[in-house]
């Protein structure tokens, strides 16, 4: 962090560390809205706890591992993800629809939100900074293969790349290809192989011996 604007003779030096301006503005909003009865501070704490500790790529990995292990589940997931995921107690609290797109030797899927940062929160949690950056949002559609190369992904020649643009209403999850050599693994072991990026389509799932 830069400290160019620090003043050694600041008269407030001995006082509490002053939060940055946006933090004070958020506190102001929260105080006013709580006083008006529009916000319940306990509900805010719960939301933070959910997204910080309970929801994350581990949820998506569980779905992927189950799809790899259970053909009927996979077929249902690709057909109607909302219904299948709700049975696993996974659903969008903002009313969005989930769509699962399957990677195959012929087609590699990749997800972006060109508008802002729409992302399948219930299965992947909060998106990483790169997903929210202008660079990714602009380039994923225009030059997906170059973006994949930046992520270290090289596709077999002839593989088609399909880019899905998430919206407020529809969020996409990539079902990556199951790596070879995983026939004997159970769902938990399979889930451990599945990375967040592989479910956004910016990584492939490596075989266990190559996984780090």
């Amino acid at each position, binding site marked *: 962090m830069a400290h160019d604007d620090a003043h050694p003779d600041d008269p407030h030096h001995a*006082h509490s560390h*002053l939060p940055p301006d946006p*933090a004070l*503005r958020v506190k102001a909003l929260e105080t006013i*809205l709580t006083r008006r009865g529009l916000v319940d501070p306990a509900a805010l704490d719960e939301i933070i706890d959910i997204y910080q500790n309970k929801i994350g790529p581990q949820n998506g990995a569980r779905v992927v591992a189950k799809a790899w292990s259970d053909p009927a589940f996979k077929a249902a997931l690709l057909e109607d993800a909302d219904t299948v995921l709700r049975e696993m107690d996974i659903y969008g609290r903002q009313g969005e629809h989930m769509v699962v797109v399957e990677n195959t030797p012929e087609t590699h899927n990749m997800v972006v939100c060109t508008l802002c940062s729409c992302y399948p929160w219930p299965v992947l949690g909060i998106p990483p*900074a*790169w997903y929210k950056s202008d660079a990714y949002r602009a*380039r994923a559609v225009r030059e997906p293969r170059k973006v994949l190369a930046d992520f270290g992904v090289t596709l077999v020649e002839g593989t088609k790349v399909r880019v899905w643009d998430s919206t407020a209403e529809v969020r996409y999850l990539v079902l990556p290809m199951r790596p070879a050599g995983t026939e004997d693994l159970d769902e938990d072991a399979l889930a451990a192989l599945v990375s967040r990026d592989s479910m956004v389509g910016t990584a492939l799932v490596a075989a266990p011996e190559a996984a780090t």
Partner: protein
Amino acid sequence: MSAASSLCLPHGGEEPVFVEPWHAQVFALTVHLNESGRFTWADWVARFSATLKRHGLARELDGGADYFDAWLETLETLLTETTDLAPKDVNMMRDAWEAAYLATPHGAPVHLEAGLTKKL
């Protein structure tokens, strides 16, 4: 496109879900207001994407702090346009919190009253 488009994407490292505590707070505030019916998520996305687009005209956004700056600006504007929340109310409360921090000895819990007492 621009030279900026050839920038490497900042990926690969582990990062916390929320880098700053206020990022978590403003996120939770927005989700809570949406879930309690104050606005639809489609409305939020339309407004937020417009803010990002406007900010992105001046410089390339990296999806880090600038992302939540845009988020906060969107929420403030949404609330002042759709409720009777006035910008001056937010500014006054912000200043009261600042005063509270400055009136509280280092290490002690900060209460808004400390700022209000000092202001009034």
